[in-house]
């Protein structure tokens, strides 16, 4: 495994929804490479194709054209039963933990759910689930004593920690975070971002971080792509996106960041 090995390679990735007059081009021929250990930001407004892109990368959807490969293995066109390697190694944290955690499951079951998947077990071997829950809850800053409580007993920030623990359970290589702090208070946002930062370092993860907020992306990611109408309009190190944006659209995104008046 070389340090600059490609995790994801997408070529000409295209996704069209509907047909005829209602045809929508959600993603129009995107080429993207994500390298090992990279923290890639994906920025754009609602409808820009960010979520479609990560759904295709994670093989939760099938492209209309183009292809995805993961760690050198083709993903597109393979049947689900051959995708175990991807299912274990790529995990997602979604935007709203109120929606992404099953309200009828205790935290212990939520976190170990990925470990019960036959495909993931085939990849990972048998892990002691209770030990894993303890390890993960401690890693994300939750108290193991709370493992038998339900999600509604936790605050928004704590619920996002549960979602992160679940994503880490099968020891993934890539963590895809889809707007992980957009539904959280500003004061809780910092806690979750610090946590993600620590975990990515500690477990040597590659992270794809989706957000409409350039401030957050600048803080978390080394490189970012800016998406608009299903295409990548700019791809650059985040520092230069801020200091020297190349497109009007990136400039518009920067201008939209709420400024401190009188500060």
């Amino acid at each position, binding site marked *: 495994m070389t340090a600059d090995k490609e995790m994801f390679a997408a070529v000409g990735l295209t996704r069209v929804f509907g047909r005829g007059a209602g045809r929508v081009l959600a993603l129009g021929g995107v080429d993207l490479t994500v390298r090992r250990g990279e923290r890639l930001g994906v920025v754009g407004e609602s*409808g820009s194709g960010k979520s479609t892109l990560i759904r295709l990368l994670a093989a939760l959807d099938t492209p209309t054209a183009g292809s995805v490969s993961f760690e050198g293995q083709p993903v597109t066109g393979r049947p689900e039963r051959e995708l175990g390697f991807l299912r274990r190694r790529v995990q997602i944290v979604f935007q709203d933990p109120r929606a992404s955690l099953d309200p009828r499951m205790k935290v212990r079951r939520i976190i170990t759910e990925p470990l019960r998947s036959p495909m993931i077990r085939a990849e990972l071997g048998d892990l002691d689930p209770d030990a894993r829950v303890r390890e993960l809850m401690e890693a994300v800053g939750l108290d193991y004593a709370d493992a038998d409580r339900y999600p509604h007993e936790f605050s928004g920030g704590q619920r996002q920690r549960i979602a992160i623990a679940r994503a880490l359970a099968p020891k993934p290589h890539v963590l895809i975070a889809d707007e992980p702090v957009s539904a959280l*208070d500003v004061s809780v946002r*910092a806690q979750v971002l610090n946590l993600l930062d620590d975990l990515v370092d500690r477990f040597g993860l590659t992270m794809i971080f989706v957000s409409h907020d350039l401030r957050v992306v600048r803080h978390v990611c080394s490189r970012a792509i800016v998406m608009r109408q299903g295409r990548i309009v700019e791809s650059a190190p985040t520092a230069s996106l801020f200091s020297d944006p190349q497109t009007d659209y990136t400039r518009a995104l920067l201008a939209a960041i709420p400024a401190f008046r009188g500060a």
Partner: protein
Amino acid sequence: MSLLRVRDLTVAFGRRPPVVRGISFDVEPGQRVGLIGESGCGKTVTSLAVMGLLPENARVSGSIRLGDVEVVGSSDRAMSELRGDELTMIFQEPMTALDPTMRCGRQVAEVLRLHSTAAPGAARERVLVMLGEVGFADPERIANSFPHELSGGQRQRVVTAMALINSPDLVICDEPTTALDVTVQATVLKLLDRVLASQNAACLFISHDLAVVSELCSDVLVMLDGEIVERGTASGIFTDAQHPYTKGLVATSRLDLVEPGSRLPLVEDFYAGAER
């Protein structure tokens, strides 16, 4: 005389301890006051109390005077004359604030018709003018659209049109941009700034995001666990916060000051009581 005068307002639900604990504040005509704090601090309950929209199991004490009307203890009928007219509200989620089965133009017109005797034709005319004022280039098309046919930002503009068509004295905005993208948020904030100024309406703006509040408000109230722990001008709060909790809030919202990749400051770094 203050437009809104809140004194010793306490709100409790059922037998649980109060969620708003003896707060007092004023809003002057045309003044824009930001009410900030995190989820659960009581800011939304405060706004609902001012609107007279608390559920029946709420126990309210203290006084809320809007002009010369006492809101606490007022009948629903008396309040509904104020609501939508002198006192309006913009909610966080525009999709739930709009009726999905009703065209947008009719929804805006309804607010107008409930509070004036305008003839239907004249009402339609004013609705179109108002939709133009909230930045729609094609008010006719928007008026004929159902809410699901519009984007989030467009819906929030329709809600803004509803809130401002009767030239209210006070508009309560409860996190009106939290559900929106950053770019749409910027548009909606600019629009609010413009229409509030053109109608000289006062505003109580509720948010957890100091940066957003600073774009719109001259004054800020900081709420923590049901109490107002700090108040002052917006610039004073941002540059010279006194309460440790406020210092923490200011620090967490200043992402721009933190070196990328380094640890972000937390509220707990400043105020231990914020642990939750």
